[in-house]
């Protein structure tokens, strides 16, 4: 009865090992789809005392 459980306990970490790498690559892929830009907005801070 204990043998299958022991086997599972042994195998489970092996099965889960690729998971972080997979999640990391998915996150990287999601990030790669985003672009980045710096925009100038004239008088953004001065005219209205803040932007938020």
């Amino acid at each position, binding site marked *: 009865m204990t043998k299958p459980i022991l086997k599972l306990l042994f195998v489970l970490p092996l099965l889960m090992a690729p998971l972080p790498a997979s999640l990391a690559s998915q996150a990287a892929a999601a990030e790669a789809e*985003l672009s980045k*830009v*710096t*925009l100038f*907005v*004239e008088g*953004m801070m001065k005219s209205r005392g803040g*932007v938020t």
Partner: protein
Amino acid sequence: MVAALSELAGVDEDIEVFLDRDAFTLDYDPALVNLEDMYTAIRGLGYEPRLSAGEEVESAIAEAGAAVPEPVATALATAKTEGKLVFLDFYAEWCLACKVLEENTLLDSAVASTLEKLVSLTVDTDLYTPASLHYNIVGMPTLLVLDSDGTEIYRSVGLITPSELNQALNDLLSR
């Protein structure tokens, strides 16, 4: 405005505001929004997407009229002599997007090799504000290609992949 642009960009709280420079950096999903949409949203909020300059710089620009400011004027003179195109990279030391572009695209070996065929110049928007205003730099990084007469024939604002930029440059070189 930050909240409105963040929502427009399809991201949450990925905007970094540079209070002293009237500028902000944001991540955005190009599938959801483009730069024109953002410019329209900024105008809709009562602002103008434009590089801020002091009165002194503005009056100097007005006096200069249509004359091309330095350092671009010198690069254009070189380009005319050598029969080359001019490649301008408008950036700033504090521009996060510019650093990403440099690392991912401009330092790419194929791109760097292609750029050797042009007169290449980096233009710091802090140091050369008149040149930045002359070419209507609203966002960074902005890449421009000018022909030897100074006519703008290519503009890219924001990030671009090495293959896209290389293709665009080679298309311009083969004209």
